[in-house]
């Protein structure tokens, strides 16, 4: 679903990512953990097509993002539920309206959007706050609303930057369960966190854990490739790529 091929990215002369290769498949949950300013947010922004790499390629559903026309980008982004750091919300709107909005953008009917949004809110324990104005919420509740907005409608790709930031233990547990559930529903889920414990909790629910350090990804266990086992189609694609490169 998401594939990064030898991606390098620098900002203000500082290399944030160096030859990073990573794949997140359908129904897979990958958690990238690392210290602050390790380049996790840049990695996720690249996967969410918000940034373009300086070198290498980002592939979303077998499409090279670098080859996409500018007008096509919104169509790709609609299918990637991206939770950036400090996610923006529609402050004057209710919690429910905020969570319904991405479904509307994806072309869902209003009633179906409401149902999908309510389901996401229920998953995160926010259903009783559906009518509250977002402007009146606490920081933790705002984070949950942003996360519910990302989860609503079971998007094919979830790219979540610090989804548990500022949450208490009960909410964190809900988030872990929700992410595991999203993976179970077939979404490709990529999570970045600097919280080792949270990364461990996700790993405990079947997430593949990788570490980002000095702009490079390091595998959690020796012998396990960061690129997951490829199916027949992907092998054909990989072979073709190798031949192109050679």
């Amino acid at each position, binding site marked *: 679903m998401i594939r990064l091929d030898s991606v390098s990215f620098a900002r203000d002369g500082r290399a944030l990512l160096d030859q990073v290769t990573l794949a997140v498949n359908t129904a897979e949950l990958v958690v990238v953990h690392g210290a602050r300013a390790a380049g996790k947010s840049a990695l996720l922004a690249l996967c969410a097509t918000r940034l373009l790499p300086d070198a290498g390629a980002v592939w979303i559903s077998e499409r090279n993002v670098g080859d996409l026309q500018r007008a096509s*980008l919104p169509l790709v982004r609609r299918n990637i539920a991206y939770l950036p750091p400090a996610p*923006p919300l*529609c402050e004057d709107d209710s919690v429910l309206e905020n969570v319904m*909005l991405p479904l509307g953008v994806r072309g869902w*009917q*209003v009633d179906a959007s409401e149902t999908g949004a309510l389901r996401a809110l229920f998953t995160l324990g926010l259903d009783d706050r559906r009518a509250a104005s977002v402007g009146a919420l606490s920081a933790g509740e705002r984070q949950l609303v942003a996360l519910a907005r990302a989860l609503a409608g079971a998007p094919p790709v979830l790219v979540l930057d610090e989804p548990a930031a500022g949450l208490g233990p009960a909410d964190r547990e809900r988030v872990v369960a929700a992410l595991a559930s999203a993976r179970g529903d077939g979404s490709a889920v990529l999570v970045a966190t600097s919280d080792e414990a949270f990364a461990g909790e996700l790993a405990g629910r079947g997430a593949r854990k990788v570490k980002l350090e000095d702009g490079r990804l390091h595998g959690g266990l020796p012998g396990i490739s960061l690129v997951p086992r490829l199916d027949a189609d992907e092998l054909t694609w990989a072979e073709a790529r190798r031949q192109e490169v050679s």
Partner: protein
Amino acid sequence: MTARWILRRVRREARRRAGALAALAAAVALLALVAGAALLGLRTVRAVVPLLEHNVHVIAYLGDEVGPAERERLVAALRQIPGVERARLVEPEEALVRLRAAADSLGSRAVAGIEAGFLPRSVEIAVAGGAGMPARTAELAARLRKLPGVVEVDAMSAGLARLLSWMGLLRTLSLAALAVAVFAAGVALTLALLSARARRRADARVLALLGEAPAGIRREASLTGAAASLLGATAGVGTLLVVFPRVLRGIEGAVGLGPLAVAPSLGAREIALALVVALALGWMGGWVATPRERTR
């Protein structure tokens, strides 16, 4: 987004920006009203001035000693003067009929006992209209006064000059009002846009994050802006269509003219054009009011 979603978002936008949209509608209504009034004012001036000029006559009152042959000669000579459109003899009986008609229209019975014999014969001279008419009329009157047999000349030139200067002032005021309205509407629209732009920035960020296309991000503000602007223009034009005929009747009454043969009005095409321009203006306003989010 589906049509229902768009409608929902437009309603939300209208609720959130009710004040700014009302200001936009009011600014457009004022602009339509003043611009339309200025246009109609100019048309009224164009229609009234020739009418005034046509109704202005130099009247030369003749002495009783002037015989029929001399009168005919005088009228024929006057017709030869350049700038004189018509010259005709008015007999006392006709003058009395006119006087009675004028008195009746004013509700006066002051002329009830007057007989035709009290009134002098006169020559009624119509001077060609156009630039410098008051001066030409005054010059003609001065020449007539020197003619033998002419006892008095009523040139009406002072009144005409006054009326024409009033008309010139009305024309200038119409243009000034138009300029002020355009300027005021421009300032109001710019302020409304700047205020809306700040408020729309957060929404634009959210929609861009969710993968909405740039046109979709701007759609809500454009639709609400177009609707408010169209509403304002309709109100402005509608008010003008109702109020202007009454104002015109008031002016006609004040000036003492009969109803104009063709009352100045706005054509269907002009109204349609005004509404389309207002619609486009509102749409563009909403478009500009939404900050552009970087897509890459």
